[in-house]
C-alpha cells in the first residue's frame, strides 16, 4: 500500500526537477546540433541555451520563466494500491502544483479563459490536467509532469487516405514553417506527430509523442520509425534554425504515434516541445521508495496494444508450450 503523502512528495519534486534541469537526452541532442549548425546566429542561440541550462542547474532557478501549462501523466500499475485512492492522488497532484508554484517559483500562468481571474497557483478548473494510463503486472505508480508552452507550435488537420504521405509531409512543413518563423515554436524542438484516432485522441497522441518520448527513441513499427527519421531530416532542411534565423536546427527529433481511425480519414496533429523541454518522472514503489528519471516510459507495449485482450508473458509462454 503506497501512502498518499509519497505521491505528493514525488509530484512536488518532479515539478521542481522539470522546471530546472534540462533532460540529458535533449541536451545531448542540442549539443549535436550546434556542431552541425552553419548559421552564426542560430548557433549563438543554441550556445546561449546551453549556458542558460547550466545557469539554471547551478542556481537552482527555472530555465524558462514561462512555465507553460504544468500538468501530469500518471501510469498506475494494475497491482498498485494507494491509501487515499484515485481521488487522493488527484488531490495530491493539485496540492503539489500549488506548492511548487510558490516555492520554485513557477509563473502562475493559469487563468479563467473568460474572466482572466486566477488563484496564483496554477490550479483551477480542469487544471492541472491529469491523464491516466495503466500497466499490467506492476505494483508501482509512475507520475510524469510536463511543462509545455501553451501558445504556439501546434496544429491539427483532417487529411484523407488519398492524401497519403504527401499530405503528411505538407502539413508537417506547413506547421513547422508557420510557427518556426521568428522562432514562435521555440525550436529546435522535439516534434510530435499524431496520426489517426478521433480528433481528440489525434491531438493527445501527438502531444504525448512530443512530450513523453526521448530524443533518439524510435517507434517500434520499422516503417513508422523510418518516417520519423525522414520527417526529422525534412524539418532540418527547411533552412530555418533557432529563432527562425537562417540555419538547420529545427527538429531535435520527430516522434510519431498512431491510433486506429475512421476508415475514411487520416487526421493529423503536429506539436513542438520547446527549447526548455521540461519533463520529469517519478516512480513510487509499493514500499514507498521513490526513483526519479527523465524518460517517462509512457508508450509501453501495453499502451500500443492492438488486440482485444492482453496476455502476460507467462500466458504467452504457456499457450505456445
Amino acid at each position, binding site marked *: 500500500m503506497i501512502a498518499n503523502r509519497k505521491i505528493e512528495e514525488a509530484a512536488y519534486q518532479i515539478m521542481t526537477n522539470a522546471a530546472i534541469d534540462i533532460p540529458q537526452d535533449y541536451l545531448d541532442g542540442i549539443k549535436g546540433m550546434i556542431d552541425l549548425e552553419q548559421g552564426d*546566429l542560430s548557433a549563438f542561440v543554441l*550556445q546561449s541555451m546551453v549556458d*542558460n541550462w547550466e545557469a539554471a542547474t547551478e*542556481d537552482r532557478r527555472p530555465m524558462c520563466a514561462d512555465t507553460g501549462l504544468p500538468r501530469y501523466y500518471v501510469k498506475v500499475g494494475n497491482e498498485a494500491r494507494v491509501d487515499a485512492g484515485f481521488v487522493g492522488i488527484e488531490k495530491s497532484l493539485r496540492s503539489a502544483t500549488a506548492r511548487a508554484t510558490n516555492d520554485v517559483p513557477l*509563473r502562475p500562468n493559469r487563468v479563467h479563459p473568460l474572466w482572466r481571474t486566477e488563484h496564483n497557483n496554477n490550479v483551477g478548473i480542469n487544471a492541472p490536467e491529469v491523464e491516466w494510463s495503466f500497466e499490467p503486472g506492476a505494483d508501482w505508480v509512475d507520475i510524469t509532469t510536463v511543462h509545455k508552452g501553451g501558445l504556439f507550435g501546434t496544429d491539427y488537420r483532417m487529411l484523407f487516405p488519398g492524401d497519403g504521405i504527401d499530405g503528411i509531409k505538407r502539413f508537417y512543413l506547413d506547421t513547422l514553417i508557420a510557427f518556426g518563423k521568428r*522562432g514562435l515554436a521555440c525550436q529546435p524542438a522535439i516534434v510530435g506527430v499524431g496520426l489517426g484516432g478521433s480528433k481528440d485522441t489525434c491531438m493527445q497522441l501527438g502531444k504525448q509523442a512530443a512530450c513523453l518520448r526521448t530524443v533518439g527513441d524510435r517507434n517500434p513499427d520499422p516503417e513508422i520509425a523510418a518516417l520519423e527519421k525522414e520527417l526529422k531530416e525534412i524539418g532540418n*532542411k*527547411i533552412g530555418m534554425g533557432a529563432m*527562425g534565423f537562417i540555419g538547420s536546427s529545427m527538429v531535435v527529433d520527430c516522434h510519431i504515434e498512431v491510433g486506429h481511425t475512421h476508415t475514411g480519414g487520416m487526421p493529423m496533429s503536429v506539436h513542438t516541445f*520547446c527549447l526548455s523541454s521540461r519533463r520529469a518522472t517519478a516512480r513510487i514503489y509499493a514500499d514507498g521508495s521513490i526513483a526519479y528519471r527523465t524518460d517517462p516510459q509512457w508508450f509501453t507495449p501495453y499502451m500500443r496494444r492492438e488486440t482485444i485482450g492482453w496476455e502476460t508473458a507467462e500466458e504467452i509462454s504457456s499457450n505456445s508450450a
Partner: protein
Amino acid sequence: MGNRRGNLKQFRLKLPVTAEDLAQLEPGAVVFLDGVVYTAREGVYKRVLEDKQDLPLDLTAVSNVNFHCSPAAAPDAEGSYRIGGVTATASFRFSKWMDEWLTRTGTKIIIGKGGMPREAYCDILVPHGAVYLTTVGYGTGALLGRGIKRVRDVHWLDDLGIAQAMWLFEVENFGPFIVDSDLNGNSLFAAHGDEINAGLAHLYEGLRPPALRRYGETDDRKREVM
C-alpha cells in the same frame, strides 16, 4: 560562450539608454544592459491607454526600457520578491498600443519575443527613435534571472497579478539580447525571413495538395501567422 560569439558584434549599454548608444546598434548585434528596466504588457497597456488610468510613477525619469515579460516571482521573507527566471512573451500582439505608449513614456528600447512586423518598426519605432531587442532562444530565463539584482518596485500586483503587473528591475549585465530593429527600421527577422522564404517553394515540389482545403487557406508561404 563558445567560439561562435566571436562572429557577432557585442555591446554593453548603460540605462537609461542614450540616442548615441542606440545609433551604434545594428541588426544581429548582441546586447547586455545595466540599469533599470520595466515590464508592461497587455494588462498595463489597457489600463493606461484604454482605461485612462495614471501611470503609477514618473516612468520617464526612471527607465526607458520596456520588457515584454512576466517573471516567475514569489514573495520573500524580507517583504520583497524572489525572481526565479524571466522570459519574454511574443511582442506582435502589442504593436497596436506602441505608438501611444512610446509617446506617453519616452521608451527607447522594447525587449520581447519574436519582434514586431517590419511595418511596425518603420511606422512606429523609427519616428520615436526606438529600437527592438529580442531575447535569445526564448528563453534564457535563468541567465536573465541572474541579471536581475533587485526588484526596485512592483505596481498593480494585486489588480493585475504576477504575470501582468508592472515590475521595475535593477539589472546588471542583463542579457544576452539580439538587436532586431535599428534606428532606421531594418529588421533582422525580416531579413532572415526573406532569405528563408526564397527556398520554401522548393520544399513542396512534388507533394500533392490535400483533398479537403481549409477555409481561408493560402498557399502564399511568404506570409506570417502574426
